Structures are given as C-alpha cells and as structure tokens.
C-alpha cells in the first residue's frame, strides 16, 4: 500500500514537472540559439499571468489563456529586436546583467500598474475538483494543464525537427557561420525562437494563475526553478530539459513524502549531485563555458 502512495507522488511529480517544463524549455531554447541566459524569462511568466487576469475579466478564462501568451509573444519581438539582439556576441556577463535588470524593471512596473498586493484569480467552476483514476487522485485542472503541455511540447518538437524552420534553427545552433555562408539570415529565426520561448513562459503564467499566487515577484520565484531544471538537463538540450523537469517534479514529490521540510531544497541537492557526476548536465552535449 505504501508503494502505491509513493507511486501517486511520482505521478503527481510528473504533472508538476510538466509545468516547470513550459518555463524551462523556453529558457533553454533562447540559450541554445542566442547563447544568452535570459534572466528576464520569469518576468514574461509574470506578465502572462497578469495579462491573462485582465483578459479573463472581459472574455473569460479560455480566451485569456490564448490571448495572453500571444500578447506577451509580441512583447518578445520588441525584447529580441531592441535588447537581446545586441548581446548575442557580447560578453555573457553583459546579457546576464541586462536581462536581470529587465526582470527587476518589469517586476516594479507590475507593482506600479497592478499594485503590490496579490491579485485574486479563480479557475472556471467546471475545472475544479479532482478525479480518481484507479487509486490515484488527480486535480482535474492539472490534468488539463498536463495535456496542454504535451500538445505544446509535441508542437515545439515537430517545429524543430520536421520543418525547414527547425532545420535552420538547429543548423544555426551548431554552426552559425556556416548558415550565414549559405546566405541565410539567422536574425528572423532568432526573433521567432525568442517569441516562442517567452510565449511559453506566459502560457505557464496564465495556466498557473488560478492555482498559485499572482503577485509581482512571481517571476523571480519561477526563474530559479527553471534555471535549475535547465542546468540539470544540460544547457541547450531539448530532451535534457524534458527529463530534468520531470525529474525535479518527481524528486520533490518523493522528498515531501519522506522529509517534508526538505521539499524545496531537494531540487538543489539534485542539481548538486548531477553537476558533480556529470558537469554538462544529464543530456548536455558539451560543457558551456562563460569566459
């Protein structure tokens, strides 16, 4: 019987990992393509949550979850063209500083526009409650969340692996100079990837708003987890991020089952162990060096 409880925690951890994945995958993609660790990623997640609440006031929950990521994606175009683009070839410390600064600016803007107090957010009544499958309890809402993550994940994978767009992006990751020599301008692809990345973060924010607190610092909360996931998975590895996100969710669930006080620390211990045994991360192909 006890094993079954544990299995339930594992499955629940997988669901939670799916949500981490939405944030971490964009972070990883932007890093792969631009070589930039986007510390402002959490800010787009927060914006996604806040915008979804605004849209939901007029159009309801469903449209909000679609419109908010699209709107944040549009912001992503400005972000890439006017800020990020200048730092692809610059010293990595500069892009870290500028995105970190942007994260703080956005957090403060949110505080000015929406106030410091958390905003109430509720999901549609129909999505509340849980379903029991076999002996397992699932939140109905989280199952929906998992389904959306699966669709997004499949979409991104197909986009990167089965389309000409994806071929250019992958070539750009490996050999940017070669791609340029073939007469392909990488810049529009970069923009597209950044838009995709931040839109995924915003989708995460919009989807998580009804079950967690919507407050100005929510971006700072998630960026740490997302970064840990990307590092565990291996910087720039698609499946590495998927694996790491699920692993972090599962390890957290199991830890809480046995040692609840260590729940939040578990992912850092996991990162520590992984980096000790395999410095490039689980599926990372090479060790990225910041020089």
């Amino acid at each position, binding site marked *: 019987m006890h094993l079954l409880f544990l299995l339930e925690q594992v499955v629940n951890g997988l669901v939670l990992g799916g949500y981490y994945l939405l944030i971490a995958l964009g972070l990883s993609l932007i890093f792969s393509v631009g070589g930039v660790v986007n510390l402002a990623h959490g800010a787009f997640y927060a914006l996604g949550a806040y915008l979804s609440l605004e849209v939901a006031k007029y159009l309801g929950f469903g449209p909000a979850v679609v419109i908010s990521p699209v709107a944040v994606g549009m912001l992503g175009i400005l972000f890439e063209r006017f800020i990020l683009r200048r730092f692809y070839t610059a010293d990595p410390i500069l892009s870290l500083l500028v995105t970190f600064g942007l994260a703080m600016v956005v957090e403060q803007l949110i505080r000015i526009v929406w106030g410091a107090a958390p905003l109430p957010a*509720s999901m549609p009544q129909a999505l509340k409650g849980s379903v029991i499958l076999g002996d397992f309890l699932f939140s109905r809402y989280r199952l929906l969340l998992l389904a959306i993550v699966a669709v997004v994940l499949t979409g991104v994978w197909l986009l990167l692996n089965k389309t000409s767009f994806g071929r250019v992006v992958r070539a750009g990751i490996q050999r940017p100079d070669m791609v340029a020599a073939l007469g392909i301008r990488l810049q529009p692809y970069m923009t597209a990837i950044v838009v995709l990345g931040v839109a995924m973060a915003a989708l995460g924010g919009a989807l998580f708003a009804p079950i*967690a607190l919507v407050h100005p610092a929510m971006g700072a909360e998630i960026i740490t987890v997302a970064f840990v996931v990307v590092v565990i998975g291996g910087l720039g590895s698609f499946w590495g991020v998927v694996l790491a996100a699920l692993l972090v969710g599962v390890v957290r669930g199991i830890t809480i089952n046995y040692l609840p006080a260590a729940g939040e620390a578990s992912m850092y211990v996991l990162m520590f162990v992984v980096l000790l045994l395999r410095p490039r991360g689980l599926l990372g192909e090479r060790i990225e060096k910041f020089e």
Partner: protein
Amino acid sequence: MTNEEKKGTGAPRSGGRRKVLQAGAASALALGFPAIVHARSDKIRIGHLTPRTGFLGALGGWAVLGIRLAAEEINAAGGVMGRQLDVFSEDSVNPAIAATKAQRMLDRDHAEVLMGEINSASAKTIMQVAKRNKRLYMQIGARSDALRGAFCNRYTFHVDIPVTVMVNAEGQGLMREGLIKGKRVYALTSDYLFGHDLAKAAKKFVTTHGGTVIGDELIATDATDFSPYLLKIRQAKPDLIATNLGGNQVTNFVKQYAEFGLPYPVAGFNLNTADAWAAGPGNLGGIWPTVWHHHVDTPGTRAFVAAFRKKYDKTPENHAWIEYVSLHVMARAMSETKSTDTEKLIAYFEKEPRFDLLKTRKGYFRNWDHQMMQEAYTFTVKKPGTYKEAWDFLQFSPPIPGPDQPLDLLAPTKAENPCTF
C-alpha cells in the same frame, strides 16, 4: 538636480524650451526643499522596517500604506510637540539585512525610534539591535510568542496579537463547531520561527482539548506547490486540516485546496484578510482568526476605513490598520511625555495607559511583557450570493474576549510566558 542645472545652462532659449526649463527648475526646487529640511533635523525621524519582497512582501505593502496615512494625519494636525513626523520605510528583506538596516537607521539616519516588521525572524534581530543600542522598538506585526517570551527585552513593545491569542481565539471557534474533541487533526506548518511557534501552541490546544494531531508537515516558506502535501492529507483522512502557514503560503494552499476539492474541513491559526482576499471568493472556506477587520462597528474604524478608501481607493486590511494605530499610539506617547527619549517612553507605556485601537475596548501594553492586550475576532466565509463587493465575502465574529471577560483572557499567563527583563 545637477542634470537639470546642466540642461539649464546649455539649452537654447527658445520659447517652448523655456517653459520646459521653468517646469524643470520648479520640480528641482520641489525636490530640493525637503532635502534641506531633512538636514535641519527638526523632524522626528522614525525608522520603519517591513518586508516588501518575499512571501510577506504583499502584507508589507499594506503596512506601508497604513503607516503613511497615519503620518499624514498626525502631521496635518500639527505633528508631535510641534515637530513633523518623518517616517521612512525600508524593505527588511531577511533577518540579517533587517538588523543591518536597523543599526544604520539609528546611526546614520538619526532615527529616534524604530517601528515595524511582520516577519518574526526579522523582528527578533531588530529587537537585538534595539537592546544593544538601548533604543525603543515598537514591534508591530510579527506574532511569534517567543518574541514576547524567551526573547523579550524591555526596549521592545509588541502591538499585534501573539500566536497564543490567535490559537485560543480560533480554538474557541473550532470547539463550538465540534471540530477538536475526539478529532484527528492534520497540521501544515510554515518552516520558520513564526510557524514553529504557531504549531507548538496549536498542538497544545488540540491535545489539551481532547484532539489528536496525526500529522505535522513542515513547509518551506518559498513553496508554491502544495500538491504533494494534499496527496498526503488524502491518505491520512483527517477530521480537520489545521494550517500554521504564513503570508503567501496560506493563499497558495487555500487555492490549491479548492483546486483538488478535498472534503476535509480546513481551519487556520493564521490568515490575514489580505491573504483571504488574494485567494478570492469560492476558494476559501473554514474558520480563521484575525486581529481586526474593516467591519468592526466603532466610529474610529469607520473613520479610518473611510480615510483609507479616500486616499488609496482600497479597503484596508489588518496590516494597514495595525501600522496606522501603532503610529498614533507612538505619537500620543511622545506628546504626553513631551519627549522621544527611550527611557521616558518605556516608563510611560509601562504605566499601562489605555490606547484607542479603533475597537470596542481600548488596549494597553501589559507592563511585565510589553505586549498589547486587545480584542480579537474570528471569521468564516459567507455563502456565494450573500455579498455584493469582492471585499465582503468574510463573516466576522463579535470580539473575543466578550465584553464581560478580562482583556487578557486569551493571552499567555505569567506562568506560561518566560519573559523577564
């Protein structure tokens, strides 16, 4: 300001530009004057620390609004002893930074007294700074018993109700509902000083009143996902879930509990009205304790709520209220002693003068442990459709203790509280 001046000398003198310049100069003057006044230091400087970031940051936002309103009122009425109050607020961040900032406020910023805090762990380090510097600290919003007990010192006065009072008030409510005696209680506890204190007091209450605590989970303050805990609760099948959580944790828990829709009743030994509002109607259930609410039926509360709404277009919650009354208490103490001297203020407070806290009965600082004796309340959630405004979904109890009971009924007794100065 130097920028403004530079622009002023370098810019061409066309008509449109000139207007801009004049506006610039005017704003520079407006910005410049207060700085000059600061330097003359005829204001009473009060160092105010409260969390603005982290899991208590949202509550700190309310705190700043409350103390600002009080300062404006006091200054508009002529200040204290003819001097204006200058309350400067800073983010206390964490216990270590809180202590550093408190020391700096005394040394560099010439604060006469220190006020504020919500985080019990930070309050503890500020209390140490107050003691070391022999300077008064009015600890406003942190509720840990230990601050008023084992860690107490004579330089610190505590305004908010302590954990024991919250537990006793809440416990009385739960007893009435028959949720303690012979029941199995599952506790969730915030993993820091306040949570531990709360859990200890709650456990004591439950066991002495015939209940059993069948689980107690420590939860990190930065936890945002509670699903693994919810699964454990479902396996344990308790009669009551008792939450000893703080700040954003409570709201997160309440929202996710509604998400999973488990059937067990939830009670909490700590919930601020702001946390309840943030959870939103439809997500909250159960019985909760509080120190004040905007429906308290007194002229003082009505006037405060009206003034607060006028200034901020918001309904004040309990952290806004407590900061507001605290500054008024401090101002009255300074006026009556005609001094900002720590020793004189301590002597004044220790005479147990009664202070208007905008409640039915006046409160006082108990002289042997320096904590405020005052009324508390519990609240439940109104049924959907029985309220109009989003602020109004909470149903508050009459004051506890009742009008015929002593004000220190729920507070720890001398035998229970190890405080000595």
